[in-house]
């Protein structure tokens, strides 16, 4: 028959055995690099620290209360391990490359080695894990009480000891044990081979114990699976569930998948304690297999227990009470040890992981910031580190105990789920950190914080409902009566399972804040470097980022720091190796940036990346560089920046100048070709009259039979041709003078109407010759414009004579009208000639352009319109071709009127 005293003694002996195992395990792995303790099997077994007393005792209780739901806790991690190639492998690789010591270190390191984020994560982890530790204390307490109540006189020395006192004793014992166990030294990479060996051993023990109980209950008592199900059905227990696969099923699967990544102890074992990435290959299938074996007998035990145990028996303890009630002391003792194993392994690893986080991210930074690293004796930092870890373990177990004694007597599984939902708040930041380069510190911190607050409000707080009256008030009617904020009906979301409700809101808002916070904030340089190092961990070769400038610290300074954190031996080895690689004496070692970042990684392995960064920053940048030097460095940097900015500006200017030159060159080319064209056209124009003058004079020079009449006609032709030639040359001269602005006149107020009348008069002879007349349209009265009267007259003459010369209509006519419109004197000269074809319209103002139909006998050189346009332009007016009142062309002159 088992007694309480006996199981307590057994537990103490068992703990002693674990300690010995850990001690020799440590020595063995130190002496032997390829020890079996570094094998994939041990790694896999140690990961099963996931199976705590929640699994050992609580799963049966959960199965008894909610049927298949307990499976979700194991199916979630199974999925994560099946996909180990994607998330876990990446985490393990990053953990190795960056010497990550904890989940807080991972997040802090990813988001720019932010100390604040590390503190936030650490605090949340401590608060989030507290219920989980309470769960273990509760399970051990309950198991000892179960033994004590199993028979008359089994209570032994526990007579008069209540649950609280017993739990306190257990918590104190656990704290002492963990301190002895886990903080004997500060290890190179925060790896605890001895502890891992002990945890692996415990994994075997709990699996063996649970399988033994399972086989005993299922086959020994129940007569096989079939008869257990039949018996349960006969006893009126529903073995076919209506619908366990609601939102709660999905939420729990997601939570447990998140937990296997985010739980500090899982991270510690899977990532930090990982000795070889290839161990994941085995864990990928073996850990799910372990979980499968742990779950095979859960349902049969629960069903059998419900069938045979008296009403009101605690199903959480069926694993222990079933053998006890059958008087099977041996199996009951095994069950007790198994349950004790699962609880202790969780408490040990969780409190080690949390204490590392607390000491590295909260205590060390405070000490580093408030005192000089160089002071104190050589072992100062190490001793401080160990002390802070021991204190942290004490604090963590105290919190667990307080939670245990404050909260009501819930079942085990719901308590564990509170912790799962708490640490799941790290998941969005981790996944974003691994796969989204733009994820920024501000986003991660705000997301985690908001998720944590929602979790604390909707899940953590309600767990105090039964003991704190005000909590139940708040849950009933909301804070200050605001029903909108009721913890389990947040924002008016009712009719949802409290767990689903909390998980939904916390993870949703967490992710929303993460994404928006990342999108609206800018990453610092260090953050960008770390983001790339994390996201692309498989893409790049291991690289040393240039965190510090060389030359501002000597090897001695660095050694001083290294010795204090790593210990004399490891520091010496590190420096000697570096010196050997460089081929110099250790005393001559120059601290290069590569060496400094290697040292930073080594330090990070002991005290976390944020603290290591701060510490080295103190020595390398802050300690030995004076303010003046810093200012000078900053000045030089500033100068270099300015210089480069100036260079950039100059080169931009040069680019602009070059483009301008190119444009000018193109313009010149264009002008040059225009000039050539002009010359060839002039030559052509001059050539025709010259040819005729020459041939007629040659005829005249011939002594021959030319009569006087002929001679007279020839001479008259020569005269006409030379007149035409002179006119042409005059026009060319005029135009080029106008273009160059040489033949200038002073614009003076003149009567434009008078100039128009004069022009019509001049053209009268020409008009008569053609039998035409000018038809006047609307006429303006005396209008003064700024210009030159003769020149203006010249323009009008040109327009009217064009209208006459090119007009081949049967009843040719010219229509002249003038008016003042909107402060402008407008003259229109229209004709009923052939008009100007669309294609010619844009050419008519060019030099030497002549109407095709007009033929060559019109005597014009094709310069008239070009000259007219120039003249009008000089009077600040315009000359253009417009659609007119008559079928032919219509030219419009606009000149500003002087008031």
């Amino acid at each position, binding site marked *: 028959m088992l007694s309480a005293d006996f199981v307590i003694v057994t537990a103490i002996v068992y703990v002693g055995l674990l300690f010995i195992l850990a001690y020799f395990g440590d020595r063995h792995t130190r002496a032997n690099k390829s020890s079996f303790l570094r094998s994939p099997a041990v790694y896999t077994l140690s990961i099963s620290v996931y199976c705590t007393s929640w699994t050992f005792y609580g799963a049966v209780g959960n199965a008894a209360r909610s049927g*298949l739901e307990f499976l979700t806790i194991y199916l979630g991690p199974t999925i994560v391990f099946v996909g*180990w190639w994607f998330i876990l492998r990446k985490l393990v690789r990053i953990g190795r490359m960056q010497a990550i010591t904890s989940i807080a270190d991972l997040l802090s390191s990813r988001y720019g080695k932010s100390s604040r984020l590390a503190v936030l994560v650490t605090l949340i982890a401590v608060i989030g894990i507290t219920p989980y530790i309470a769960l273990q204390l509760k399970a051990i307490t309950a198991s000892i009480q179960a033994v004590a109540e199993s028979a008359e006189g089994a209570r032994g020395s526990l007579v008069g000891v209540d649950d609280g006192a017993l739990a306190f004793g257990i918590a104190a014992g656990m704290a002492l044990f963990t301190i002895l166990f886990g903080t004997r030294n500060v290890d190179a990479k925060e790896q605890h081979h001895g502890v891992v060996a002990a945890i692996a051993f415990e994994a075997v023990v709990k699996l063996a114990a649970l399988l033994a109980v399972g086989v005993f209950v299922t086959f020994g008592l129940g007569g096989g699976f079939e008869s257990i199900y*039949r018996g349960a059905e006969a006893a009126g227990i529903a073995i076919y569930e209506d619908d366990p696969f609601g939102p709660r099923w999905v939420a729990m699967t997601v939570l447990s998948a998140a937990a296997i990544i985010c739980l500090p102890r899982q991270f510690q074992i899977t990532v930090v304690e990982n000795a070889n990435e290839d161990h994941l*290959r085995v864990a990928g299938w073996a850990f799910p*297999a372990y979980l499968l074996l742990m779950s095979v007998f859960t349902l049969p035990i629960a069903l059998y227990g419900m069938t045979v145990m008296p009403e009101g028996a605690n199903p959480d303890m069926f694993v222990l009470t079933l053998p006890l009630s059958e008087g099977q002391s041996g199996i009951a003792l095994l069950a007790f040890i198994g349950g004790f194993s699962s609880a202790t392994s969780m408490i040990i690893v969780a409190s080690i992981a949390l204490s590392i986080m607390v000491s590295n991210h909260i205590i060390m930074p405070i000490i580093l910031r408030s005192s000089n690293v160089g002071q104190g004796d050589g072992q100062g930092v190490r001793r401080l580190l160990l002390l802070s870890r021991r204190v942290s373990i004490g604090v963590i177990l105290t919190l667990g105990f307080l939670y245990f004694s404050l909260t009501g007597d819930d079942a085990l599984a719901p308590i564990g789920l509170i912790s799962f939902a708490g640490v799941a708040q790290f998941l969005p930041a981790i996944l974003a950190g691994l796969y989204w380069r733009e994820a920024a510190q501000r986003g991660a911190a705000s997301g985690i914080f908001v998720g944590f607050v929602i979790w604390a409000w909707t899940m953590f707080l309600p767990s105090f409902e039964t003991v704190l009256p005000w909590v139940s008030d708040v849950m009933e009617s909301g804070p200050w009566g605001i029903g909108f904020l009721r913890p389990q009906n947040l924002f008016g979301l009712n009719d949802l399972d409290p767990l689903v409700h909390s998980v939904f809101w916390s993870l949703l808002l967490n992710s929303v804040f993460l994404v928006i916070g990342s999108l609206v904030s800018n990453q610092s340089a260090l953050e960008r470097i770390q983001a790339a190092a994390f996201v692309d961990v498989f893409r790049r070769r291991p690289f040393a980022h240039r965190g510090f400038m060389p030359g501002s610290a000597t090897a001695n300074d660095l050694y001083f720091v290294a010795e204090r954190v790593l210990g004399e031996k490891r520091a010496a080895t590190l420096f000697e190796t570096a010196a050997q690689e460089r081929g110099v004496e250790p005393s001559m070692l120059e601290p290069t940036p590569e060496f400094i970042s290697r040292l930073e990684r080594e330090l990070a392995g002991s005290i976390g990346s944020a603290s290591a960064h701060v510490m080295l920053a103190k020595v390398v940048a802050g300690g030995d560089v004076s303010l003046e030097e810093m200012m000078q460095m900053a000045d030089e940097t500033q100068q270099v920046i300015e210089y480069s900015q100036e260079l950039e500006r100059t080169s931009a200017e040069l680019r602009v100048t070059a483009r301008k030159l190119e444009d000018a060159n193109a313009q010149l080319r264009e002008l040059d070709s225009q000039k050539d064209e002009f010359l060839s056209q002039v030559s052509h124009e001059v050539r025709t009259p010259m040819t005729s003058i020459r041939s007629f004079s040659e005829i005249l020079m011939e002594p021959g039979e030319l009569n006087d009449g002929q001679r007279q006609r020839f001479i008259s032709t020569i005269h006409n041709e030379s007149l035409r030639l002179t006119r042409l040359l005059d026009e060319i001269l005029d135009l080029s003078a106008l273009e160059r602005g040489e033949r200038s006149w002073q614009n003076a107020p003149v009567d434009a109407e008078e100039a128009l009348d004069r022009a019509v008069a001049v053209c009268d002879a020409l008009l008569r010759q053609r039998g035409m007349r000018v038809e006047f349209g609307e006429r303006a009265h005396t209008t003064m414009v700024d210009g030159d009267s003769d020149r203006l007259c010249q323009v009008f003459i040109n327009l009217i004579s064009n209208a006459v010369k090119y007009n081949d209509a049967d009843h040719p006519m010219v229509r002249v009208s003038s008016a003042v419109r909107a402060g402008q004197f407008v003259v229109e000269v229209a004709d009923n000639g052939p008009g100007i074809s669309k294609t010619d319209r844009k050419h008519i103002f060019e030099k030497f352009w002549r109407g095709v139909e007009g033929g060559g006998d019109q005597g014009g050189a094709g310069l008239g319109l070009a000259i007219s346009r120039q003249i009008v332009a000089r009077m600040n007016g315009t000359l253009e071709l417009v659609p007119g009142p008559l079928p032919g062309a219509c030219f419009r002159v606009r000149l500003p009127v002087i008031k």
Partner: protein
Amino acid sequence: MTARRKLESGVFVFAVFGALLIIPPLVYIFNHPILFFGIPQIVVYLFGVWAMMVIGTGILTHYLPHASDEDSHEGDE
């Protein structure tokens, strides 16, 4: 490298498919009051999927490259 890429995709699909098989709506297909060897169908189904995932992962992992002998310039996304 394409074989390797396909293998990685296979692992991914395997994990996603495993997840889909254990959550609604697919689980409903196997949630009928039928007994196999005296065990409810859904229990047999869930443990069956689970065992299949264990075995499948073991087989797929066998073909995945080891960390020790892979080149450092792999792409995993």
